[in-house]
């Protein structure tokens, strides 16, 4: 495949970035999107140029590190996959592919396509955990959990914290991410104990960090590689209102 790549290049957080156009030849349609970028970087290194910086780690859709906004879609045009699982067969020979970093005030660009997503860590630090005191491991079946609750909690826990929901949202809202992290505990008895302060503190931090407000366009749900449902957002809203009122 022959490709034209239009990639956002930015030296560091402070400098002004710009788009740079590269052309690539002989790309296999079976190549993954990140492998295609690896090939580009090899060429750049051979020409003594600065390779394109982009985040990645597992390359199998589980770590949430890859974060590319490709042709107007976070994680590219394929459904329910991360950018690392996207393959070049989803594109046509001769295509121009525009690659941008996630754009949101709380996700500043570090370099090129890599953004700082520690805002998500700050939200998690506010309550995205359960406090477990040390001691002997308890018998797992002591606490009974319904099949439905455990399934829903597992679905919410599938969120890999990639930030595509923020990148897709016209308001750069983090509601889908935060609601998944709130829901995975709110649904389970172990998480209920700290549920009220968890939701209040996580939402407060989300707002403080400058994420936008949810206007229910559901772009987040449409682009989430892990198919996190908007019903989590409604659950978080319920939890939040109850925690505030009662």
């Amino acid at each position, binding site marked *: 495949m022959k490709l034209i790549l239009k990639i956002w290049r930015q030296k560091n957080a402070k400098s002004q970035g710009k788009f740079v156009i590269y052309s690539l030849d002989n790309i296999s349609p079976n190549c993954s999107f990140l492998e295609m970028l690896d090939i580009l970087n090899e060429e750049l290194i051979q020409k003594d140029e600065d390779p394109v910086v982009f985040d990645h780690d597992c390359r199998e859709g589980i770590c949430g590190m890859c974060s590319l906004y490709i042709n*107007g*879609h976070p994680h590219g045009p394929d459904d329910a996959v991360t950018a690392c699982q996207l393959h070049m067969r989803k594109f046509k020979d001769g295509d121009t592919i525009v690659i*941008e970093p996630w754009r*949101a005030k709380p996700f500043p660009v570090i370099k090129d396509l890599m953004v700082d997503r520690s805002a998500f860590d700050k939200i998690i630090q506010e309550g995205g955990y359960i406090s477990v005191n040390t001691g002997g491991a308890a018998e797992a079946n002591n606490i009974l959990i319904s099949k439905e609750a455990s399934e829903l909690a597992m679905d919410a826990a599938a969120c890999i914290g990639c930030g595509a929901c923020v990148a897709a949202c016209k308001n750069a809202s983090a509601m889908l991410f935060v609601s998944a992290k709130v829901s995975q505990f709110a649904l389970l008895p172990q998480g209920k104990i700290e549920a009220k302060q968890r939701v209040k503190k996580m939402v407060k931090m989300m707002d403080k960090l400058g994420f*936008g407000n949810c206007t*229910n366009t559901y*772009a987040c749900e449409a682009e989430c590689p892990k198919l996190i449902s908007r019903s989590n*957002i409604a659950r978080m*809203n319920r939890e939040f209102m109850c925690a505030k009122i009662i």
Partner: protein
Amino acid sequence: MSFLGLFLMVFLVVHLGINLCLLRSDGGEWFNAAAHFMGTNYVVKVFEVILLACFILHILLGIILQVQNWMSRPVRYEITNKTYTPFLSKYMIYTGSVVLIFLILHFMNFYFIKLGWVSNIHVSPEGEPNFYLIAQDLFIQPVYSIIYILLFIVLGFHLNHAFQSAWQTLGVNHPQYNTFITRFGTVYSIVVCLGFIFIPLYFLLIR
């Protein structure tokens, strides 16, 4: 936003009910009686204050939230987002602004007359404004009627997203009821929109 919006939606139905009195060929007897009741009843007067507060809060909050939303993405994308989203759900601030323009126009034509801030020529012997004649005067002007119709189509789109969005914000989301809520919102927005649109059409074309 959601509470206020839902309250305003209930009000719209009441307003539509009153407006439909315009369709009776009784020289405005029912309509003026309804307008008189709304203007004099004490319970209605209390609601009027609540309603006005709801409108103002809904508009103010809408603007504040929108400005925050714009600020949360200081650097825009080169390629505008292509994610599929429900029709016009991304443009609530714009459809809302159009409705606000209409609201101002509407207040000039009716509410301010009621308050005596704007003068009018249709006054009954008791000194009360004859809202039937005021409405009729406006609706027989094609330009006014066309603007009115277009604005209500925009309001229809605003309401269509607003209804299910309000329930989602209030945390009402359940696989068993989601389809019902979305469909009810669509039917509500179409019925309200067509109901209001029918009145100028009646004055222009049928009567």
